[in-house]
């Protein structure tokens, strides 16, 4: 059992190394980000504790994947398996529990730790056998896959847009439009297997333009109805809405270029920082986009030629 946790620790360190971060620094950064985001959440909303519990439990529930649990059960005896699952769920729950205690939410902290232990006895099958139809079947795969993964978040974005109109809050409407593009960016955040680039019989330049055209077309299918709805109710702010839409496209294209600039590997920390800077201060995209584009062409040429 001890070796299992040693292996998990090694896997985590390897992942940090692949990201270009020294493990020790990664742990400190992770802790700072966790505490920072927790503070921000509790500062922003009065429902923070409940949101916090939901986030914690959905994170912990990832360990209940059926296939993973069946492997553990086949490898270890039943009693060791139960101890491993209980311990790993508790380890993942503790940072959340400690922050809840710091916030004086001891009842919720207790509830969380009990739920984490209870979840260790559950196996989920996250491979849904029901196929969710999407309008993105002509040009798979990013939006097809992403929509199936995050359909509920798209629903939420549309709901927020509807609420923005109902309560006449323009900023909320902008938020819903932005979140549709952020979700689109999420579909391009992880690199696909090299094989799915190798199969293309075109130049790196053409490949990138195909990817970008598909992304713009499909993100428009999701964002334009929202844009039209918001424009109808906030006609005075039409220019701002169009500006947000254009910026959304630009961010999406930057994300695609950032992904292929590191392909077939994952984005390194310096690349992620560069992407973050471009998104935080869009005028920087004038430098960031050509840089990512040049690197993407170089990376893709190695596979496509």
């Amino acid at each position, binding site marked *: 059992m001890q070796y299992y946790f040693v292996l998990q620790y090694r896997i985590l360190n390897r992942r940090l190394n692949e990201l270009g971060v020294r493990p020790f620094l990664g742990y400190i950064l992770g802790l700072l980000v966790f505490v920072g985001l927790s503070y921000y959440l509790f500062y922003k909303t009065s429902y923070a504790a409940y949101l916090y519990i939901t986030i914690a439990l959905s994170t912990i529930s990832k360990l209940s994947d059926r296939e993973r649990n069946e492997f553990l059960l086949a490898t270890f005896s039943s009693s060791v398996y139960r101890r491993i699952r209980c311990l790993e769920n508790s380890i993942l729950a503790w940072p959340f529990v400690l922050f809840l205690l710091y916030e004086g939410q001891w009842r919720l902290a207790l509830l969380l730790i009990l739920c984490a232990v209870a979840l260790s006895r559950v196996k989920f099958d996250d491979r849904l056998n029901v196929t969710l139809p999407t309008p993105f079947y002509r*040009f798979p795969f990013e939006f097809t896959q992403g929509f199936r993964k995050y359909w509920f978040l798209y629903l939420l974005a549309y709901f927020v847009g509807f609420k923005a109109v109902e309560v006449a809050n323009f900023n909320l409407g902008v938020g819903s439009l932005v979140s549709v593009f952020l979700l689109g960016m999420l579909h391009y955040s992880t690199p696909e297997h*090299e094989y799915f680039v190798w199969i293309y019989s075109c130049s790196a330049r053409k490949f990138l333009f195909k990817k970008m055209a598909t992304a713009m077309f499909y993100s428009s299918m999701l964002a334009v109805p929202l844009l039209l709805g918001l424009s109808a109710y906030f006609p005075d702010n039409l220019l701002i809405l169009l500006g947000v839409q254009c910026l959304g496209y630009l961010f999406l294209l930057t994300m695609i270029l950032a992904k292929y600039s590191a392909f077939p590997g994952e984005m390194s920390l310096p690349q992620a920082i560069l992407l973050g800077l471009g998104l935080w201060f869009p005028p920087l995209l004038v430098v960031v986009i050509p840089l990512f584009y040049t690197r993407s062409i170089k990376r893709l040429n190695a596979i496509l030629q």
Partner: protein
Amino acid sequence: MIEIENLSKSYGQKQVLKNVNLSLSSGKVYGIVGENGAGKTTLFKCIAGLETGTGSISSGYPILKKSAGFLPTNPYFMPKITGSEYLQLLCNARNVKMTNFQAKNIFELPLDQYAETYSTGMKKKLALTGILLQNNDFFILDEPFNGVDIQSNMIITAIIQELVALHKTIVISSHIFSTLNDTCDEIHLLRDGAFVKRVEKADFQELDAEMKRFVLGDRIERLGLR
């Protein structure tokens, strides 16, 4: 005609391919046999252009990979993508205009289901269908018969024979000697990253017997089964 000359490939200190030479003609099937770790998959990846080695691979095509279909031993599938979407992706990649895959679904796969939920054999059949629909001229099939049911094995054999009739070039690896016997024009024996023998169809049985002698040796006796 595809010419592979002095192809070598190393991973760090370990040399996986050692000066491999191979000539591949149109309308012929080439079998590559060898033990696990002999270098078959690396050779295939190098020919496909998924790995780079030293030496040269020349062909009549401007860029070989644009006319090549590669079936990996364990085909890759993305999560939450259906069988028909996978086929659509492969066709789009080669500018093949096709949207109705049901008529081409000769293995009767559940194309509306997520490919990740398919069994090993179904995955292999889907990946094979994909590279066939791309209208390639050159096929690299790494273990096409592995994990596939006996009926589908018969279909795959018939497909290979049809591809030969269409003057396509095919390279196959298989651990099932009878499948190579049925399909190949010549077989190359790969051992420790180098070709040690080339056998034509008339001598396949002799190669089979020789491989058995070499592989088995006194291993079973050493096991001392009781």
